[in-house]
């Protein structure tokens, strides 16, 4: 039996090579329009409606770039715990993370997130019309370091406003939405208990809810954050404000208020059990829009009341960033660029009525105004006003210092002790001051003593 001749083998080999090179070359040709074809990125955030909405558009992104997105959402505390651990060990399991407001100081300061300036300043990676400057300054301040480098772009702006679930009761009393602390007490006095409705409600996160009242009364948490973190909880202003706020909660709040979560406080308004609350817009819009709300017709909105020292409405934001350990940073940037582009955000607002976007061009759009015109009120303008307020004077810097979660915990406990009459306000806050100093010193932070 004759075997194949050498010429036949060579010819066959050449044919196979040609075939192989053709086959192997094909994907490169096909993928020219999708340079990331075959790439999968892992992204993570806490459970939120924004990303639930965004997920429905993922096929568009995958079609456009070839990048597959494995997006995972967890409960707020679960996400923060896991991501903190992942980032602190410089892991590469995640390519896109949510930069949680209270952790931004820690994550950016420790170098656990990637500077996005290299991406935004490179025209090949980011077209000019993507416009980083379009993000409201107030929401971006927490996403930057002291040098002004940007590490995340905001997808949610939490602007603290005031809502009155039963504004009809205020009208009946011949009053209007309170604009000052004194007016707030006057309205509460006039309406508390009417038709079984408590005049005020809040959740137990006093280190978020009380601080605007503390600042309005001329106090503060730290001396000059982020440079000087000496706590200022033992001042007369803090004691006076702590007493005032605890009284607001206990005298005008529903039973059990001191243990309320965010959601319980919102439900107390939605069910018509409580009237006024000062909190981020995220928990205010459902009063007018949620199917289970019994106060859709009676709810009205206003700015956070001002104190003698001014208006210091709470303002926070959450952003999308890239972990320092990610091995797919360019693909991750493609995702962030798409998710927070004007076009995508406009779709989310138009299709789902999402109320907390951070791009000025969207906030000023007709669609957004429509979404946030609630009972004839232009709530979009209130939202923008607070976001700008937060960015202007930088009074929210107290909240993004890495030590704030520990100090905030001491504040929560102090307000609880005052509200339950376990301690008088000066003593409770002096104790919080001493505990906060201990925390700071343990963390190696210098304080003025």
């Amino acid at each position: 039996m004759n075997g194949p001749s050498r010429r036949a083998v060579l010819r066959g080999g050449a044919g196979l090579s040609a075939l192989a090179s053709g086959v192997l070359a094909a994907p490169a040709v096909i993928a020219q329009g999708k340079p990331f074809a075959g790439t999968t990125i892992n992204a993570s955030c806490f459970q939120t409606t924004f990303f639930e909405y965004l997920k429905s558009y993922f096929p568009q992104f995958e079609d456009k770039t070839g990048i597959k997105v494995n997006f995972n959402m967890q409960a707020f505390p679960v996400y923060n715990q896991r991501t903190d651990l992942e980032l602190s060990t410089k892991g590469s399991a995640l390519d896109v993370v949510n930069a949680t407001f209270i952790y931004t100081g820690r994550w950016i300061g420790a170098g656990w997130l990637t500077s996005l300036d290299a991406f935004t300043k490179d025209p090949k990676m980011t077209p000019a019309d993507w416009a980083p400057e379009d993000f409201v300054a107030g929401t971006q301040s927490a996403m930057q370091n002291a040098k002004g480098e940007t590490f995340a772009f905001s997808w949610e702006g939490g602007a603290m406003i005031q809502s009155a679930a039963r504004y009809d009761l205020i009208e009946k009393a011949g009053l209007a939405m309170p604009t000052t602390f004194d007016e707030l007490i006057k309205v509460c006095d006039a309406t508390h208990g009417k038709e079984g409705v408590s005049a005020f409600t809040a959740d137990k996160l006093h280190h978020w809810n009380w601080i605007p009242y503390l600042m309005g009364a001329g106090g503060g948490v730290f001396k000059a954050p982020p440079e000087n973190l000496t706590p200022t909880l033992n001042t007369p202003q803090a004691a006076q404000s702590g007493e005032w706020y605890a009284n607001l909660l206990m005298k005008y709040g529903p039973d059990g208020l001191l243990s309320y979560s965010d959601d319980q406080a919102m439900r107390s308004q939605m069910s018509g059990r409580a009237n006024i609350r000062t909190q981020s817009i995220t928990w205010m819009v459902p009063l007018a829009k949620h199917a289970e709300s019994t106060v859709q017709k009676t709810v009205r909105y206003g700015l956070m009341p001002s104190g003698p020292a001014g208006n210091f409405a709470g303002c926070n934001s959450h952003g999308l960033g890239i972990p320092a350990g990610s091995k797919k940073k360019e693909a991750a940037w493609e995702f962030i660029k798409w998710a927070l582009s004007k076009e995508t955000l406009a779709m989310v607002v138009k299709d789902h009525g999402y109320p907390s976007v951070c791009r000025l061009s969207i906030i000023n759009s007709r669609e957004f105004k429509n979404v946030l015109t609630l009972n004839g009120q232009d709530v979009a303008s209130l939202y923008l006003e607070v976001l700008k307020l937060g960015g202007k004077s930088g009074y929210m810097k107290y909240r993004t210092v890495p030590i704030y979660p520990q100090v905030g915990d001491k504040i929560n406990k102090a307000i609880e002790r005052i509200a339950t009459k376990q301690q008088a306000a000066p003593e409770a806050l002096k104790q919080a001051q001493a505990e906060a100093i201990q925390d700071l010193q343990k963390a190696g932070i210098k304080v003025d003593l």
Partner: protein
Amino acid sequence: MQTLAVVLALLALAPFLWLLLMSFKTNAEIFRFPPRLLFDATLANYAALWTSEFRNSFANSLIVSVASTVLSLVIGVPAAYALSRWTGRGGGTITLWILASRMAPPIAFTIPYFLVYRHLELLDTLTGLIVIYLTFNLSLVIWMMRPFYDQLPRSLEEAAWIDGATLWQGFYRIILPLSGPGLAATAILCFLFAWNDFFFALILTRTEAMTAPVAVVNFMNYEGWEWGRIAAGGTMIMLPVLVFSFVVRRYLVHGLTGGALKG
């Protein structure tokens, strides 16, 4: 006296009954004030659990808890027997070292475990969780079972050996059946530890191996909590433990006090 016992039992059960009732209510009904004892019950919360990721997490919890319990018993019971019958020096020291994994709070092991698991690619795997629970449960098994074997007279197994049984046969046929109550009590404690664990499941899993306790927390969304599903999930998590405890309750009481009789 009986009335007092019933009142106390009702007081102790009140939170669980409240949770159970909540699981059959809509969100609007849950927040109705004052709450009603009679309401239109709904199974929507349970149906929602079944169509969500909770179903897989529940299965993960079952697999991990049963596997770690069985493995702990398979390895730990012979070890406890061997330590009980150890006549040489060092038995006590070894037993003490076995308890080392319980000597520090779990948080102390977090970073090392996380790094080792990442290196071994065991993060977010059922195997990883089973191994973790095994390391913690093993000391429990050994420390609970050793006093049982100490109680049993050596003459029993010696009689079996005289009759021609091997060491293993003596243990398997004579000693093991006598330690039934202890095994039941130990098994339920191991199962409970693995079943109720939140911390390690939180740190060492992501999506694939997530267990039920972590999955329930995921109903606490940023903008609002799904109270009905949380209650339904909580009820589902309690159910296997209740059933298991009910089935072995006779052995459980005997087993928990059995080891304490010696001395």
